[in-house]
């Protein structure tokens, strides 16, 4: 049964009418055409679908849309809404931390979430926090550089 579900998406209040049990990921992609958030596994194993819910990085493939009622959601599209890249996006560009790029929006959102914590986590903690993200192109060396660059920026 469809229900009206209201939340804030990338800074704008929004109401969708849909089945509340659908994954948030699917509603973002299919109903709201925010396709920057990706499907990689559907079971919280790869991180491709990562978005921020009230500032915390979550896997949108295992969150129902009904569960985000009243919450603030940020997707990759919301990071650079004003056309200016987020420092984490800049770090990925600077380190050329991409191959096919499919894992990248999720990686960026996961890292943005981690760097919003106070204090900013240390290197080891940050990297182990990223273990939940798979890059099947195995571009980890550049990803690690991008993570360190973004973290150094955040610690300033």
């Amino acid at each position: 049964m469809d229900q009206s579900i209201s939340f804030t998406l990338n800074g704008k209040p929004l109401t969708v009418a849909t089945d509340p049990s659908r994954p948030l990921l699917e509603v973002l992609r299919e109903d709201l055409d925010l396709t920057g958030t990706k499907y990689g596994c559907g079971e919280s194993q790869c991180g491709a679908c990562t978005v921020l819910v009230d500032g915390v990085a979550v896997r949108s493939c295992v969150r129902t849309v009904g569960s985000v009622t009243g919450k603030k959601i940020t997707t990759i599209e919301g990071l650079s809404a004003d056309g200016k890249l987020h420092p984490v996006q800049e770090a990925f560009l600077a380190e050329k931390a991409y191959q096919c790029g499919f894992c990248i929006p999720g990686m960026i959102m996961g890292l943005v979430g981690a760097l919003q914590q106070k204090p900013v986590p240390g290197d080891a903690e940050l990297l182990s926090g990223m273990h939940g993200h798979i890059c099947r192109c195995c571009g980890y060396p550049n990803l690690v550089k991008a993570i360190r660059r973004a973290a150094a920026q955040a610690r300033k």
Partner: protein
Amino acid sequence: MIMPDEPLPFIPSPEDEHQIIEPVEFDFGLRRRTFMQLVATGLAIAVAPWPTDAQEQKQQRRPDKSGGNNAPKSVWERIHIGKDGVVTVLTGKVEIGQGARGEFTQAAAEELRVPTEQIQVLMSDTGLVPNDGLTAGSGSTPRTVPAIRQAAAAAREALLELASKRWGVERTSVELSGGKITHTVTKRTFTFGELAQGEELPKTLEQATPSTAALTAVSDWKVMGTALPRPNARDIVTGTHRYSSDIKRADMLHGKVLRAPSYGAKLISVDVAPAKAMKDVIVVQDGSFTGVVAPTTARAQEALDAIAKTAKWDESPHPSSKEMYDHLRAHAAEAVPKNEFAEELAAAKKTLRATYHAAYIQHAPMETRAAVAEWKGDQLTVWTGTQNPFGNRSELAKALRIPESKVRVITPDTGGGFGGKHTGEAAIEAARLAQAAGKPVSLKWTRAEEFIWAYFRPAAVSDAEATLDAEGRLTSWHFITLNAGPSALETPYRSGKKLARSINCAPPPLRPGSYRALASTANNFARESFMDELAAAAGADPLEFRLAHLPSGRLRDVLEEAAKRFKWSERVKSKKKDIGLGLACGTEKGSYVAACVEVEIDRKQGKMIPRHVCEVFDCGPIINPDNLRAQVEGGIIMGLGGALREGMEFQNGRMLNASFSAYEVPRFRDLPELDLHMLKRTDVASAGAGETPIIVIAPAIGNAVFHATGVRLRELPLTLPEKMPS
């Protein structure tokens, strides 16, 4: 000036005759009448078998040879220069993470002497671009880059010609640089845009042939050889790049396809009434195909679940992964040759025999198979992530029984392939669903579907046998590999007598297909492990033993360089407990690689932990050093997965580990210290680099485990025995 050592064949050859392409057979329309009659009864419907046993049906099919041979005869088919001065390069190759888009930009910019920002590369749209064959076999660098350079160089000459004509001056007094044509005497200039006004430039380019103009020598490269970032990198980090799975069309619906519970299972009956009763759902049954279409994926899944419950299947026996190697041996498609080196065997100081195994593995690209299909009348357009857009077009035409001229396949830059996306099943499924729905349909395979129903890198059984004389020299080498395929089959080492043979298995237990480096990984694992065993038997150091059998040349060069950088000879002298050093080398697709590794043995956890990988790689002149490094690093780390953990497990036709939680691909924590070095040779042609770096990883690790523990591991993924010698 033409490079003396760079013949630069213009006609792209078939990308690799070793590629394995086994499309799924669809049987649309064959039994439509029966189906209609049965639908009328409103009861459970008997349908024909779904082709789950596709892998049993065919011999290996070779890529369409025409695919590489109809390269453009005219420059205009490859290069357009717009009235705004923008240069458009057209290619049938696909960007799948390997960085081809950037390299093609560099190639065109180099020869046309224009800034890279003035170039756009239009890739893999069968309606617009030339057929450059598969994107596979590391073919983009050695074949497509030269083809683009030839066309761009010819365009450069045509522009110069045209400018001198317009000015009425000597051709030799006209120059092209920085995107401008200058008359050196009067300093008058033309931009590309100015020259492109009118019809003359397109006509000239149409008449120009790509093969006549001179190419820029490596020593004069200004754009090639630099680290140009990916032209669309910003779209990647902002999430605005649309992969096939992100394409949205007006009124688009979402599809799902009914899958068998196990390999080889045939559908006996399915009651589609529950799905039909859902107002917003369309059910499609055609031949052995059953699918549903709905406004959302969740709704389509609901409809599919409702009918999947009613499906009755006829399942057939299927070998399990535990008995797979025996199965392969028992199903060799031809007689396995006996070792006939009787003289060498009789005279040998030592004879060694060993068998090596490699498991089936899955590519598991981050983007699963996906397609959006849209019909306009009898015209079909499909956006799909594939390494083979023109091949997909043929598959679509065949399955849907329409001429190829009615099919257009567009491949947006795709979320990974690794050899795993040569066939077009998702495209065909989406097209059939869209045809029935009368609306565009998006179909995205789930991760489980990708693990189960995509094809696999074939498992391998390799039998190696060799003889040594009293001086520790190889006198004979006998190598038979079953089911893996023939890539990197021949040994590069000197031996008195040699025989190497690849034998297929029929039927193979799982649907086989290409993979990053194809059979090279399995064949090189067996060979390089066996070389280590032979070195031990000869009482020689693994490095010395190899060098004693390697003629001078590029392979020897990379091995020596890797050993030097790793300080092999010093480090191997002082042995530390549970720390092993191993090395391996190999060549494939015209490039050369060697690696030395340090591996720590964690006895408590039963784990091997690669601590340090030093790899030296030679692929000729480097077009983009950063991109090359990324490809090599990716290959090495992907190789760690296949070496240490990845292997499909199956029983009763069911995949037991079809998920990222059960099938563990490399993650951040698996990253060892990497020490990479590229030999920057300029006296040879550039070779592709996306594959070869992977082939030395598994044997180097296996050899390091032997060095640390004395235990020889002969199966991929490598597993320590439960009882380790102390």
